[in-house]
């Protein structure tokens, strides 16, 4: 009876002791970067001993929360304008901004035979719903609109567009079969250099403006060594390998 108690007290002591050297970093992460971040988190914690608390969400929502005092140390945005704006407004540490990933866009269907690696099914237009992320809020949604405009399909598919509030929801509409196909982030359907399910057309880079995703250290994390460590880790070779395996490009 006493022994387990003693052990747990010992464990508790260890936790507190390690708490004294390790720091905690709260990071707000764009929804499209969910899968790579989940792979990076344990590796970062193991390599540095710091603890990572990750929140996933839409960049615009994070902006509103940060401007209203949300306790995040680092922001990994889905675009490059939000971190720049936060820096301009004095909510981020000047000079800490950098591009951690360049996003890839993919037209994806949960049905393994719907797309044949080209845009044929998109052009044929035999679908009821085409899912995209809200183009006003999400860079991947904006990129999708650019692709449609370039193909001259903006008007023809307009009545079939359904919008997710962020790229996660856009993907959910497709994966649940409610939309036959949709423009999602390559990282959501791509792993270890190949498509993990369904069928897809990987949109050529030239068809949309590069989705540069910037990270920035926020005012709250200015004096947090773990925040600096996270940024350094994201720039390092181990993180780079993970990020690229999900279909992102690096600057």
């Amino acid at each position: 009876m006493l022994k387990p108690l003693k052990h747990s007290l010992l464990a508790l002591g260890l936790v507190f002791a390690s708490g004294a050297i390790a720091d905690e970093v709260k990071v707000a992460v764009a929804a499209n970067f969910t899968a790579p971040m989940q792979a990076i988190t344990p590796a970062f914690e193991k390599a540095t001993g710091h603890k990572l608390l990750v929140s996933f969400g839409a960049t615009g929502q994070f902006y509103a929360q940060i401007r209203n005092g949300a306790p995040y140390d680092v922001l990994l945005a889905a675009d490059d304008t939000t971190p720049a704006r936060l820096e301009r407004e004095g909510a981020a540490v000047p000079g800490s901004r950098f591009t951690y990933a360049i996003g890839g866009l993919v037209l994806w269907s949960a049905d393994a035979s719907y797309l044949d690696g080209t845009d044929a099914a998109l052009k044929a237009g035999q679908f009821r719903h085409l899912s995209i992320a809200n183009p006003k809020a999400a860079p991947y949604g904006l990129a999708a609109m650019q692709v449609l405009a370039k193909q001259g399909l903006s008007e023809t598919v307009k009545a079939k567009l359904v919008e997710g509030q962020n790229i996660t929801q856009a993907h959910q509409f497709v994966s649940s079969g409610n939309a036959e196909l949709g423009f999602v982030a390559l990282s959501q359907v791509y792993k270890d250099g190949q498509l993990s399910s369904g069928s897809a057309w990987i949109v050529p880079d030239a068809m949309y403006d590069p989705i540069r995703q910037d990270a920035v250290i926020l005012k709250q994390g200015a004096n947090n060594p773990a925040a600096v460590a996270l940024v350094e880790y994201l720039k390092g070779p181990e993180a780079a390998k993970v990020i690229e395996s999900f279909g992102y490009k690096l600057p």
Partner: protein
Amino acid sequence: MPLSKNDLDAILLTLELASLTTVLLLIIGTPIALWLARTDSWLKRPVGAVVALPLVLPPTVIGFYLLVSMGPNGFFGQLTQSLGLGTFTFTFTGLVIGSIFYSLPFVVQPLQNAFEAIGRGPLEAAATLRANPWDSFFSVVLPLARPGFITAAILSFAHTIGEFGVVLMIGGNIPGKTQVVSVQIYNHVETMNYAQAHWLAGGMVAFSFIVLLALYGGRNARMRAL
């Protein structure tokens, strides 16, 4: 004018959704409430609990199950497809169905209370006067339960106006079809249009306050009338 065309469309759509939902819910909710008020069946408690579920469930749960079940692979979706109706996700019809689930307890519970308050006395009196059940329903139950109907209608209307999670999950943010006011506020906040968000959000606060004021004011007047 601080509100855009999309904002005005969203307001109209929201009012349309709330009105239609309220009318349908009064029709659907009345027999359920009547049965719950009268029955001695062992089913009374389970059915009452099911009706009350939306009070405690997060709207995202209702929205998620609707998305899955109304989708092309879901039970309800396959049913509507086989009837040639297509699927109801991303449609106004889908929102109406979602709202009916979401606001059901706000109609059934006040009605059930009103019916229970009437008791069996007036109905037995009507029966001795040879009123058939339809007669007694329309000339005895309905007038006596009027305050209950008013409360139910106001609550259902107001609650549907405030719906967000369900619409977010099954709506697809389509202007004029599924983009209601609460979602439009979310859009404005996400895209950093705080001025427009304020106009709509402030409007919602004022509207909700007026509705509740009318509800409580009306309730006091009805109490006095009794």
